[in-house]
């Protein structure tokens, strides 16, 4: 039953461009990108117990580096992608050292502050980043000579990357390192007494999450062919965090569902209601009240309860 559902979902995802219009295919691409981003944030929030409000830094940094290298310095997409991912990893390694001096609220505030620094730089260093105008006129890469300019081809490209990302992160959290990570989340003191190095475990996870945040940033800039400081903003970090919490932090499917929900609300509701943010807030309020652990854990509990039947 589970496998049939999974296969049906996979088939639907793969065949989406054959039955849906361009609008929906593009929406699908955006959801896939947001899902990678939310999953990478979930490594920190859900599995590491490190609630970050600055995860957009990694998305934005990778996007900006790639945009600058390809548009201004004449780099090809391949080298630009490698450099921007390497740069993002280096940045995450450095930010991790600073942020992991604290935990809990302190950690959250440091990640927020660091991302605000980057956002400020993107806004003010207009000589480099073009400031509020953003960097426009970017191109999409052509992997193996295949153009990604049509909605369908980009969607499939994003689907392949997202599937791979999801698989890699699933392996990461279920590995023995993942067990160490969850242990450090729940009982850091005990884990240290058992021989684990809590700081190093958190730092490695921080860098790994930064890496996948960078990958989603590359897809983001390829998709939009444009980058603006707002992608580095706290709103961008907070939206992802809301998605993770609403979908179910510490689960594999939850963040993807949450990210999809945010994007759908944004795209649909904004067409009908001017103050769509209010609707977003109400929906989150509803989720937090009715399913405090998130949509995915909430629904699976509901399904289990329905299967048991009335008592």
């Amino acid at each position, binding site marked *: 039953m589970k496998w049939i559902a999974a296969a049906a979902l996979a088939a639907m995802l793969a065949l989406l461009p054959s039955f849906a219009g361009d609008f929906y295919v593009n929406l699908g691409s955006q959801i896939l990108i947001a899902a990678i981003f939310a999953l990478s944030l979930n490594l920190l929030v859900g599995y590491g117990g490190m609630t970050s409000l600055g995860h957009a830094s990694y998305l934005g940094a990778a996007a900006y580096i790639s945009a600058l290298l390809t548009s201004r310095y004449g780099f090809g997409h391949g080298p630009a992608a490698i450099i921007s991912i390497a740069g993002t990893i280096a940045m995450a390694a450095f930010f991790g050292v600073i942020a992991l001096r604290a935990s809990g609220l302190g950690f959250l505030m440091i990640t927020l502050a660091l991302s605000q620094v980057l956002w400020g730089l993107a806004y003010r260093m207009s000589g480099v980043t073009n400031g509020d105008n953003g960097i426009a006129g970017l191109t999409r890469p052509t992997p193996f000579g295949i153009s990604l300019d049509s909605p369908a081809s980009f969607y499939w490209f994003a689907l392949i990357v997202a599937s791979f990302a999801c698989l890699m992160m699933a*392996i*990461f959290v*279920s*590995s*023995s*390192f*993942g*067990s*160490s990570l*969850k*242990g450090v989340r*729940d*009982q850091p*003191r*005990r*884990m*240290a*007494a*058992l*021989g*684990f*190095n*809590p700081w190093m475990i958190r730092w490695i996870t921080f860098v790994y999450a930064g890496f996948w945040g960078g990958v989603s940033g590359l897809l983001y800039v390829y998709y939009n062919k444009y980058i603006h400081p707002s992608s580095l903003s706290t709103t961008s970090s907070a939206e992802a965090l809301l998605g993770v919490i609403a979908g179910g932090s510490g689960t594999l499917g939850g963040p993807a569902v949450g990210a999809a929900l945010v994007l759908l609300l944004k795209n649909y509701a904004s067409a009908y209601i001017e103050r769509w943010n209010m609707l977003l807030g109400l929906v989150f309020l509803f989720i937090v009240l009715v399913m405090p652990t998130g949509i995915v854990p909430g629904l699976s509990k509901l399904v289990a309860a329905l299967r048991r039947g009335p008592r």
Partner: protein
Amino acid sequence: MTPPTSDFALEVVNLKKAFGGLAVTQNISLAIRPGERRLIIGPNGAGKTTLFNQISGDMRSNSGEVRLFGTNVTQFTPYRRAHFGLSRTYQIITLFSGDTLEHNVSLGLLGLRPSRWQMWWPLSHYTDLETEARRTLDAVGLLHLANHPVSEIAYGEKRRVELAMALAQKPRVLLLDEPLAGLSNTERSQVKSLIASIPRQTTVIMIEHDMDTALDLAETVTLLNYGRVIVDGNRDAVIADERTREVYLGV
């Protein structure tokens, strides 16, 4: 570098810890031989658990030294001390409540293995880990609950899981912080025989209030009061000592 040799498994030299102006441990010195069974007693607030926290590295000392088998580990983090052969249990149960008993004990084993850094295979890939964890659970009489989450088992069983996690690591020095606290009489005698069966390769240092049980297990006793060592020595000598009666036994 050859490791320095020592006649003692654990040495504590002039260890001090103060919280603000409140001195909790003051100039505590202990020397415990390999294989020894040491009981640490004292009234509430005497600094027993603080002393354990300083030995395990959970708490930084203001001054003084901790040596394990002659090596000065005072500057070592708790996890480095664990790799040096030091294990402990906690007075307040700190287990991974959502995980199974087997997973809890496996984590104890994993902590000392390089595979804890490995990011590909799940824990279940290491069948030897599983076998060892189940063997240890069997030793503490909890094998039948191996696949139950910790949150579902009784308090006395949790205390035994605490013990199993530490024992699985085959420590050279084991610190037990009130292993009998809150147990029923039956559970008490179970845990007692469990502690008695710990091999002599492991040096055991135990904080315990239940004198009837604990004294049977101990060879040497240290009495702490207001963060100082009051009496220290052979069990019978310490019990017979007038100061022990005055400070602790109250008879």
